[in-house]
């Protein structure tokens, strides 16, 4: 009897766990599915075969170990920018500025990469990496401080700071830090030294491994430390955080700084692992994609990884799709935008697939019963 009861309990627990998993993963999965479906319709209308296009896309992303390596390479900075956005989100902050922080990270790491000479790789690589991360962190401290001390909303300030970052980094790449080697006419810094380059082992970029480790680290920070507890409390209920004696202002700035640290590190890895220098236009959109990825990953640090892999795969496979199926690779941007749309507007997905939200009725109730 006892046995039967306990096994029954285990089955119920597993079912509850699966239900919880479906609750959290259902919408993103279905959003991806819907986006691919609509993408297929668009392909059909424009006269291409969706099957050919998607299979080319898939092959381009996963078809060979070289392609897989490219997917991982594309996903790497996206994991960082996704983590940056997701992390800030946990404190209730919407960091639209990952792009700007990433640019400063990329530029700073390039500078350390080419200007600091005579270091062995095991010092030069981390120095450039953390230098880039620190640059992103400092840049993100600005909106954090503005929010705390003046109440300026971080969405507005980070959007503005993105423009400022684009122009400042452009200026450096075309001015003080310009590559002066003979024959160069474009705006770019000199190439970084070999001692600052992050290598790949077989086709797996070391940067990707680092990204995974950092994602786990972010998860650990958020759920296993008192700082994470403070960040999450501030995000969920700042009034209760104050009641509990937490330093809300400090936590907001700290969260922005750490978020910028992640974005900056993403930029640094892109510089040291892929581009090899700072060149305007090479990092475009990586920070903005972080928003898609964070939302697709349900703003969970571990959810960011598959989301970034998905978007990375689409980026990696797009050229092959264009080449062998004759489809403009911009279709992947359309699909990506649709995914973001459906995740953000998850009511639509819930409505189409009749998923009942656990909080739906309660939201009405609490909005009502509290009435303030």
């Amino acid at each position, binding site marked *: 009897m006892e046995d039967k009861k306990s096994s029954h309990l285990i089955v119920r627990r597993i079912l509850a766990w699966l239900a919880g998993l479906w609750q959290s993963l259902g919408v993103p999965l279905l959003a991806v599915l819907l986006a691919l479906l609509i993408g297929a319709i668009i392909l059909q209308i424009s006269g291409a075969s969706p099957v050919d296009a998607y299979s080319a896309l898939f092959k381009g992303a996963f078809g060979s170990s070289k392609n897989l390596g490219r997917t991982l390479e594309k996903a790497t900075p996206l994991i960082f920018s996704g983590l940056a956005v997701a992390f800030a989100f946990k404190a209730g902050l919407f960091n639209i500025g990952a792009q700007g922080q990433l640019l400063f990270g990329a530029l700073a790491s390039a500078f350390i990469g080419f200007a600091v000479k005579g270091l062995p790789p095991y010092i030069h690589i981390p120095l450039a990496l953390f230098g880039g991360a620190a640059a992103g962190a400092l840049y993100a401290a600005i909106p954090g401080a503005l929010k705390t001390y003046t109440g300026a909303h971080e969405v507005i300030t980070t959007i503005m700071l993105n423009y400022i970052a684009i122009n400042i980094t452009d200026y450096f790449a075309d001015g003080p830090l310009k590559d002066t080697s003979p024959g160069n006419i474009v705006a770019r810094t000199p190439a970084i030294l070999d001692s600052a380059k992050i290598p790949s082992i077989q086709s797996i970029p070391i940067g990707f491994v680092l990204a995974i480790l950092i994602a786990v680290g972010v998860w650990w920070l958020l759920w*296993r*430390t*008192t*700082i*994470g*507890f403070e960040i999450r*409390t501030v995000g*969920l*209920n700042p*009034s*209760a955080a*104050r*009641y*509990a*004696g937490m330093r809300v202002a400090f936590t907001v700035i700290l969260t922005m700084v750490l978020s910028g640290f992640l974005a900056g590190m993403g930029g640094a890895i892109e510089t040291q692992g892929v581009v090899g220098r700072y060149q305007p236009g090479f990092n475009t959109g990586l920070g903005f994609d972080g928003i898609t990825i964070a939302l697709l990953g349900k703003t969970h640090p571990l959810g960011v990884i598959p989301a970034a892999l998905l978007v990375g795969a689409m980026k990696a496979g797009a050229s092959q799709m264009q080449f062998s199926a004759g489809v403009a690779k911009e279709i992947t941007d359309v699909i990506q935008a649709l995914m973001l749309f459906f995740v953000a507007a998850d009511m639509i997905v819930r409505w189409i697939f009749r998923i*009942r939200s*656990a909080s739906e*009725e*309660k939201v*009405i*109730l*609490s909005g*009502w*019963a*509290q*009435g*303030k």
Partner: protein
Amino acid sequence: MAENETLALEIRHVTKRFPGVLANDDVNFDLRRGEIHALLGENGAGKTTLMNIVYGLYSPDEGEFLINGKKVEIKGPHDAINYGIGMVHQHFMLVPVFTVTENMILGSEVTSGPSLDLNRARREIIELSEAHGLDVDPDALVEDIPVGVQQRVEILKALYRKARVLVLDEPTAVLTPQEAEDLFQVMHQLTDKGVSIIFITHKLKEVLNVADRITVMRRGRVVGHTTPKESTQSDLASMMVGRDVILQVEKGAAKPRNVVLEIAGLTVEDERSIASVKDVSLQVRSGEVLGIAGVQGNGQTELVEALTGLRAARGEVQLDGQKLPFENPRFGTEHGLAHIPEDRHKHGLVLPYSLADNLVLCTYYQKPFASNLQRNDRAVDRNAVELIERFDVRSPSQYVTAGTLSGGNQQKVIVARELSRPISLLVANQPTRGLDVGSIEYIHNEIISMRDLGVAVLLVSAELDEIMALSDRIAVMYRGEIVTVVDAGQATREKLGLWMAGLHPGNA
């Protein structure tokens, strides 16, 4: 005569399910024309859900409505208004910077051409208020008029929309005893004119005073019908709770000792430098309960927030002989101050957190819950299991989120957290607001046993009964000032009511 026999409103077999909860289970309810029908029940009994269904805010899973004997479907508040149902919510839905007239016509504006015809509206409102004996100044700004009058505006608003059925949700929660008496008079005047009233409350005394009939709900079901003539307070209480209830708190005489909390010249100003607490001086001794009586909004909230570090203030506050700094809640936590906050959803709990996390909300960084910034989940868990057991929190486990618990159990979580660490001062603000009788009983007993252990207790409550039941001394607060401090033995409801309205003891 035949018309009088039809029911103003009839609810048949209404069932409403929320995920995991049966909020209304086959509920039947009827309202005769011109009667006051009290709907009595603990929090979470399903009263408000039922009324939200009537007002069209929720759609029922099963069941039907009849208005004046005709079957109707109510799809939204708009339908409800069209069928002559008006609702006065617990929290008023008025725009403070608008005049009474402007508030009244909001949503059903009187127009001539493209512009508002405020004059016509104004005349209509004067006629209406005279017809029903509801005295209001149509040109006064809502923010300038007392709460009791604001409520009258809400009632007039419903009547202006031709309501024949009026739902009053906990209408006396914000009123002084005298204002409540006025309200009851107004209610009787309305029923004389054929308006029918559903009176939602959990206050037994009021039900017995004003209702014609009483329906009691418990756990989503109607558990009984009665009338004031046939029942007593304790009958109603046991019907509500489902068991016998002791309405009086049993407590011995207080044995006050040294002064624990010393407040001298405390002033709290808001952003516009308007003082909400004016030069307040009070002492609370170890082993006594000092109750602060007062109508809501007379500076009690600000006083408590200043003491507990949530609000900037001027003056001197000493806790156990040590200067208590303002705007530093953690100092209080670390020096023996416990705080049961007024708003448990805003300050007291993080609703999406588990009970375990909520139970260490203030001490999460201390040993054994953390060391070197790293959390010790085992210790957090163990603490939760122990406190859930000790404070009788009804919950499937320590992992469920606080948001899924009933109000009473949520409050028990806060009480467990605050009273489980070594304390010398307990500041409890509205500790039983919105709770069921069983939980109130429990929390009252906890407060008294804290007192008997030598804790100094500062109790703030808008419920006079609560103040009188628990306090050893009573301070009355009016417009930010302490009107008087008396021994509980010398206080009567009438005297307190007058002081709460601002009359000084010398003049009363």
